[in-house]
């Protein structure tokens, strides 16, 4: 690369395989933090879980210090969380706790009352109509560096050995790899990837959702959840909807309601394990859906016109 001088500096080659900051001068010393210093070292970031008094009481009461749960449903991103809210959660779910990510100190987390869109907490609910079912809403983006700790925290309060898990998430339609030309793909597409334990127990027989074809991969929190379930032999299924990029779990400042079409993409998953045994409602309650879609900053009484 050219040093100081009249000529412009040649930009380093960029490789899909090699991190930009992994240059040849790094000798394994202190982490440089990556991305031109925008990220701090991993030791600074952490996740924290805050539980409700009822949840803490239940943990303390049991021998194994776990919450009663046979099925855990995890929604990742606005569309998946909206779908679970509309079809599974109901109006009288109990908040058990939340997980917050990206705080500089472990143990610091939002309070359970901070349910606004701008408070990026991932809430854990229990269905009052089916107390063995817990639903986790990871509507706020969970960075890849935090996924490991997030999943460890979430599963630490559950009896993993007697758990069925389903995770719903979205990925951009443009990332879906197919022999068909990209221009011919019509989204949303719903695909499923199951752990060996779920396949081995015959729980996937007759399921209505197409298997995820190679070389497509899950990424982010759904990938971390399914990976852990695969390693720990937990029956688990990941349902991923390939949708328009705007509807994916993305930038934290996009406090927009979920797209109804993206939410509806998950409908075939209702016929599959383990969602089938959670007695989901389809079609969903229309009032609940409207509340979900109208839940955005400035939606009540603010002018819709930028220029008046």
């Amino acid at each position: 690369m050219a040093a100081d001088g009249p000529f412009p500096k040649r930009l380093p080659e960029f490789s899909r395989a090699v991190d930009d900051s992994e240059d040849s001068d790094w000798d394994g010393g202190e982490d440089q933090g990556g991305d031109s210093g925008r990220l701090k070292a991993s030791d600074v970031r952490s996740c924290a879980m805050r539980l409700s008094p009822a949840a803490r009481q239940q943990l303390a009461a049991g021998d194994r210090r776990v919450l009663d749960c046979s099925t855990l449903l995890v929604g990742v991103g606005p569309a998946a969380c909206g779908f679970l809210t509309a079809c599974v959660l109901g109006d009288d779910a109990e908040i058990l706790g939340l997980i917050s990510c990206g705080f500089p100190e472990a143990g610091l987390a939002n309070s359970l009352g901070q349910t606004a869109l701008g408070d990026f907490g991932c809430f854990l609910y229990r269905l009052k109509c089916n107390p063995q079912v817990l639903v986790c809403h990871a509507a706020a983006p969970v960075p890849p560096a935090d996924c490991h700790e997030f999943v460890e925290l979430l599963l630490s309060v559950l009896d993993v050995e007697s758990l069925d898990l389903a995770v719903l998430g979205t990925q951009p339609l443009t990332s879906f790899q197919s022999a068909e030309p990209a221009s011919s793909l019509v989204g949303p597409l719903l695909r499923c990837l199951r752990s060996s334990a779920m396949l081995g127990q015959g729980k996937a027989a007759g399921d209505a959702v197409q298997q995820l074809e190679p070389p497509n991969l899950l990424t982010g929190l759904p990938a971390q959840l399914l990976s852990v379930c695969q390693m720990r032999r937990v029956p688990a299924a990941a349902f991923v909807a390939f949708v328009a990029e705007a509807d994916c779990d993305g930038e934290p400042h996009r406090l927009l309601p979920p797209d109804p079409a993206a939410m509806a993409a998950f409908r075939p998953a209702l016929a599959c394990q383990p969602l089938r045994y959670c007695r989901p409602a389809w079609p969903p309650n229309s009032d609940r859906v409207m509340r979900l879609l109208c839940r955005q900053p400035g939606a009540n009484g603010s002018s819709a016109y930028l220029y008046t």
Partner: protein
Amino acid sequence: VLSDKSIGPGKWSDYTCVLPSVSVGNVGQLAADLIISSGRLYSVGYWHSASLTPVCGPGPFGGPPCTAAELWESEQRRIVVLQLRSPVLACRRRRFLDEACNLIAECGFARVLLLASAWDSSRREPSCPSLGLAGSPGWPNPAPEGLEFEPLEPERRLSGVGLAGPLFRRLAADSRPTGTALACLFCSEGDNSGHAGQLAEAAAAILGQPGLAPVPGRPLPSSWRLLYGSRPVEGLY
């Protein structure tokens, strides 16, 4: 390491660990897939690390889903491949090095062969062979007779090689494993399937296991499907 088999200390004490690095064109990882396929290695477990970007997908050879790091073994050949399917998180490279060195020490591998690739422009001379080799004091001459290569000095910094360079220096300075070698292919990015075959052949020669070399006509891993994109739209031209 999470595995169906019991992996206690000394379980792999006379094995060689093949560990690819995320580097230019993913050549090391592609070569590891070819070694797994050609050598008919079988999955024995997963490496659960917080330093790797989470990924999960259909098994590249059929079978169970794949994760970010997997262990494949051949008892007959005394080889274990620690396949990495995702990059190391940018903020956890140092931690990854520590974890990798600890894992190798705990598993008790006798030797470690690192597979990587570097930018073609980092070759000393265009006429130099495209394969570079470095060996630790415990494995000073990893190249078999007849293999053309460019000797790499351990302290030489190669562009695009990822964490293979720092990992090689750490392992070479450690008493365990006994020997460490770095096989690095100089190339550019593009269709690197041929480079992967070349590196896999070199690895087979270094390990003295001709059966690990890619077999022409053998089906490629399903993860290679569409690796370099789909066909162009008909009627485009």
